[in-house]
């Protein structure tokens, strides 16, 4: 393997944003026909490395080499023309355009006039290959994040890359879609494409990577070949200390019902959902992408028109907006942090306090109190920001997610609905967040966790609800919570689902 000359490499690359250096002399190489995994904590510099490789940002020092020569490109577009394609961590799609228009953006088919039919057919073929039911003429704006990620992947695959760089492509996908992605990655590897892959799901790294590079605080701390590192070893190398089992072990002792939902419908998909949430309980909700979990949650907090009965502490309530939900002690953390969660152009402080601003002084806001809250959030959630007054959009993806969590929990809600809590968060911080959720429940708060991450659902939940096609497919509690049982409900077919279980 290692005798092959690298296709794309970094030599002594440094990168600074303003006065702060983020990467301190990185040497790094990608080889044809190999999957190279880059792992590291949130903010370690993975995405920055990928952007440098892809020509989107220039290194402050050092060199990018393609086929042993200085890379001939100065922009992402030129890099793409040279066969270096990046799937960005943040979406790189024009929201007003359709799927097909995005996939062919910049290299449309047709001479003078666009050949819509050919592009639509091409898109359809790509999506079919990805086993995705997305319609080529759907607008990106109307798609859920997971679908947007699939479009990103389709777009990258259509580029005929020599080098494909993937920045956490699986973070917003469900297991079924991840399988599809892996098939594609394996196909490309077989075709001799050089692949770079990042993920905070270490089992994916173990499965895919021929080589692993571990990054810590902008420097390479470990290089390994396939099989040399266990998942624990990777985690230890990343975090710099040993990690215990990341899931809290003890179960809670739920009290009375704080939230009862009956015959709840969120048109057009979610229908006739009934369940109860008890004090001091962690309730997991599992399901396929598009099964309506997000719609259900958004309906509960008044973000979507819904019908049915909601009782809070036994009293029927009407919740028509997030404010009313907040007034009843309910908070929701969205799965779409870029479009619905954070103001990317604003700084950390303004984002953190936005939904609970009334607590920071009236009529005049107290900057000191806001700063204090930010200080606490940074400490509690281990948010790594080079500077406090930076735009949130320049935070690393995982740190954005941590900030969003901090923001949601700042109001001390009694009921928290968390949609994909650890999307893009590194293993070290994950365990902190799980401990946090555990502590919330222990304090007598109630938490609903919507997650596409099976171990997370299994490891956290006292009870699991499974949704399918907008309806509740079943409920599991205590000893009955097992991967097989959940998958069986998720798939909706009893027997053959069991066969699938170990893939998930």
């Amino acid at each position: 393997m290692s005798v092959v000359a690298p296709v794309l490499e970094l030599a002594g690359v440094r990168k600074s944003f303003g006065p702060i250096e983020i990467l301190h002399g990185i040497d790094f190489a990608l080889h044809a026909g190999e999957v190279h995994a880059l792992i590291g904590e949130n903010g370690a510099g993975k995405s920055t490395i990928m952007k440098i490789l892809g020509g989107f940002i220039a290194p402050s020092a050092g060199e990018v080499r393609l086929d042993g020569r200085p890379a001939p490109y100065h922009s992402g577009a030129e890099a793409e023309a040279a066969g270096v394609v990046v799937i960005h961590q943040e979406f790189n799609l024009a929201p007003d355009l359709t799927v097909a228009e995005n996939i062919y953006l910049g290299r449309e088919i047709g001479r003078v006039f666009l050949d819509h039919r050919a592009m639509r057919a091409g898109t359809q073929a790509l999506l079919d290959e990805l086993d995705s039911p997305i319609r080529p003429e759907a607008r990106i704006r109307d798609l859920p994040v997971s679908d947007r990620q699939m479009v990103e992947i389709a777009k990258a695959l259509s580029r005929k890359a020599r080098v494909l760089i993937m920045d956490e492509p699986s973070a917003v996908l469900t297991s079924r879609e991840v399988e599809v992605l892996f098939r594609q990655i394996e196909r490309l590897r077989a075709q001799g494409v050089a692949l770079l892959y990042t993920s905070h799901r270490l089992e994916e790294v173990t499965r895919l990577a021929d080589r692993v590079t571990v990054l810590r605080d902008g420097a390479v701390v470990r290089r390994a070949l396939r099989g040399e590192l266990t998942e624990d070893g990777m985690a230890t190398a990343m975090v710099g200390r040993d990690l215990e089992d990341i899931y809290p072990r003890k179960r809670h002792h739920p009290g009375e019902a704080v939230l009862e939902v009956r015959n709840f419908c969120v048109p057009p998909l979610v229908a006739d959902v009934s369940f109860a949430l008890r004090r001091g309980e962690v309730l997991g909700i599992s399901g396929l992408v598009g099964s309506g979990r997000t719609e259900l949650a958004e309906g509960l907090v008044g973000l979507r028109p819904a019908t049915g009965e909601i009782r809070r502490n036994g009293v029927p309530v009407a919740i028509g907006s997030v404010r009313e939900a907040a007034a009843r002690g309910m908070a929701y953390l969205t799965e779409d942090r870029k479009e619905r969660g954070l103001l990317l152009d604003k700084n950390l402080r303004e984002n953190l306090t936005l939904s609970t601003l009334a607590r920071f002084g009236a009529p005049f806001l107290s900057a000191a109190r806001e700063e204090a809250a930010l200080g606490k959030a940074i400490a509690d959630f281990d948010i790594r920001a080079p500077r406090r007054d930076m735009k949130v959009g320049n935070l690393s993806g995982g740190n954005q997610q941590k900030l969003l969590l901090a923001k949601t929990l700042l109001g001390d809600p009694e009921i928290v609905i968390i949609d994909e809590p650890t999307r893009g968060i590194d293993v070290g911080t994950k365990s902190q967040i799980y401990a946090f959720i555990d502590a919330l429940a222990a304090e007598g708060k109630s938490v609903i966790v919507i997650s596409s991450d099976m171990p997370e659902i299994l490891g956290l939940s006292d009870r699991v609800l499974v949704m399918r096609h907008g309806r509740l497919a079943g409920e599991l509690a205590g000893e009955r919570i097992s991967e097989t049982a959940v998958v069986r409900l998720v798939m909706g077919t009893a027997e053959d689902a069991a066969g699938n279980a170990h893939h998930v």
Partner: protein
Amino acid sequence: MSDATLRPATGLHLPGLSALGPLLALILLVVLGAFLNDNFLSAGNVTNVLARSAFIGMIAVGMTFVITSGGLDLSVGSMAAFIAGVMILAMNALLPGMGVGVPLVLAGMAIALAVGLLAGLGNGLLVTKARIEPFIVTLGTMGIFRSLVTWLADGGTISLDFGVRQFYRPVYYSGLFGVAWPILVFAAVAIAGQIAMRHTRFGRYCEAIGSNDKVALYSAVNVDRIRLLTYVLLGLLVGLATIMYVPRLGSASGSTGMLWELEAIAAVIIGGTALKGGYGRVWGTVVGVLILSLIDNILNLADLVSPYLNGAIQGVIIVLAVVLQRGKSAA
């Protein structure tokens, strides 16, 4: 069943219906007009309304591209006045040498297009190279063009030589197969614009840039060039509009083209193009232009309580037309 239920709310959906909003408003206006006056649907009146929509219409088609790609141009009205002024002065100056005839008119047209192109280029370069907000750039050039034409006219009116005028007149007043030239040219511009927006890279890139310019840049779209092109195209169309305008009135002054920019932008927005960019609808713009000129026409057909209230009724109809459109799309 499984696939269909897995995908919420993406199927047979509304755009088709909502797009009909402005058209519906237009139809209602036509019905209202026909109801108010028997001559409303006469060939003469229809020709009048369409021909006079042509100037703003062509400009609004160009404006659609500018707005779609996230820009704005407040200078078009003054630009039209300036182009008309320069064109007339040039034709008067060339007259002794060239004499009245087709070459002179063609020379005038070429000058109008050239000045339009340069004016658009100026706006475009200030926006793309100097990176100044389009609002400020074109507010500035609006003042500049307006003031230059006043200066050229020495505070008065620049008039085309009478003989040339007579010769040039048919370009506005006559036509082909009974359809006036301005209508034909406007139709051609509208169709070309619609095709350019929907079926060429240029239109696609305008939408992409207006939607998210960073994405467009990452996708190898030459963002600055496309932006520049939209302003140049608009400048050219202002030139073309001027070519049709000069034979109509034969003069230019500091008040020529006053408030055209507002009317053009309004037509674009009424037509359903998003002011923030990202989505352009050329045929909607055409409908918007027609709505605006029909309102004027209908106000002239009816006898109102007071002419002072024209503006109020106009305002109400504009808002209603858009309510109608939104209403439909909400349905």
